[in-house]
């Protein structure tokens, strides 16, 4: 598990308050019963952690945690390259 993936998992588990969550690449926000407030809080926490901007429209392409982690990793890499 990459450092970004570890962080994403840690943030999500804390916000959705499910310490036993089975966080795998195929897990979806629906599986973890995340509501719109949970998702906003997750996005804000990740934006703050990595100083990135997550575009809400981009999330429509994201089906599961595998896609989500890959998206955040791309954003972090772009940020580090800037």
């Amino acid at each position, binding site marked *: 598990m990459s450092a970004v993936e570890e962080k994403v998992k840690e943030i999500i588990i804390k916000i959705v308050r499910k310490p036993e969550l089975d966080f795998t690449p195929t897990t979806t926000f629906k599986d973890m019963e995340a509501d*719109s*407030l*949970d998702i906003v809080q997750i*996005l*804000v926490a990740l934006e703050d952690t990595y100083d990135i*901007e997550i575009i809400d429209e981009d999330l429509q392409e994201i089906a599961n945690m595998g896609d989500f982690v890959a998206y955040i990793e791309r954003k972090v890499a772009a940020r580090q390259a800037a």
Partner: protein
Amino acid sequence: MSLKGKVALVTGGSRGIGRAISLKLAAEGADVVINYFRRRDTAESAAQEVRKLGVIAHLIKANVGEPEKINSMFAEIEEKFGRLDIFVNNAASGVARPAMELDDQSWDWTMDINARAFLLCAQRAVRLMKDGGKIVSISSLGSRLTLPVYTSVGVSKAALESLTRYLAVELAPMGICVNGLSAGAVESEALKMYTQGQEAAASSWQTTPAGRMVRGEDIANLVAFLCRDESEMIRGQIIVIDGGVSLAPIGSATNR
């Protein structure tokens, strides 16, 4: 240009009502600090519109629900401008659920952004208001009237309104005027969130005796008035701006 040379902070100032307020204060000559939550592109476009009016626009990203973000926002304002003359507490959020479905997380989120942030921002703003100042809070009819799934926001706005009155008295000796306004339904993205699936109920609130919905510009005009010295004898009031809908909410259009 009655606000020429003033420095104004508008929280949530990049979209909807906040954007209209930022533009109005800029049109009256104030430099504007636009606080925004997440969308840089929207904030940049608001800042560009403000700059076209010949004043400074300064963007600060901050979730006002977090006290440390409020502190860093005001530290940045102090560093950039050294003072503040106008503070418009506009940023708001909420969770659209009936009371029985609200949990502690949604309650805290809404109260922190809508009510606690007003206190914490006012405390910081006052320290920068060296020659007096104006504080305006933006509330809504939902503080007194019950609207579907509006519970968390309505309760937080009631706290905001009460705090407006307390601040008005406590800050008066410092030459600071504090007032608020309570708006009826305003055409905005936020409204869509609360009226989804309840079009019939929503339409009764959108048809006002005045014949149209309240616009962001209507709110901005009132804010500008409350920021001018000519309104200085109005203190701690929550001015209703709703086209008369709260006086005749059912079938108000047919009453005309």
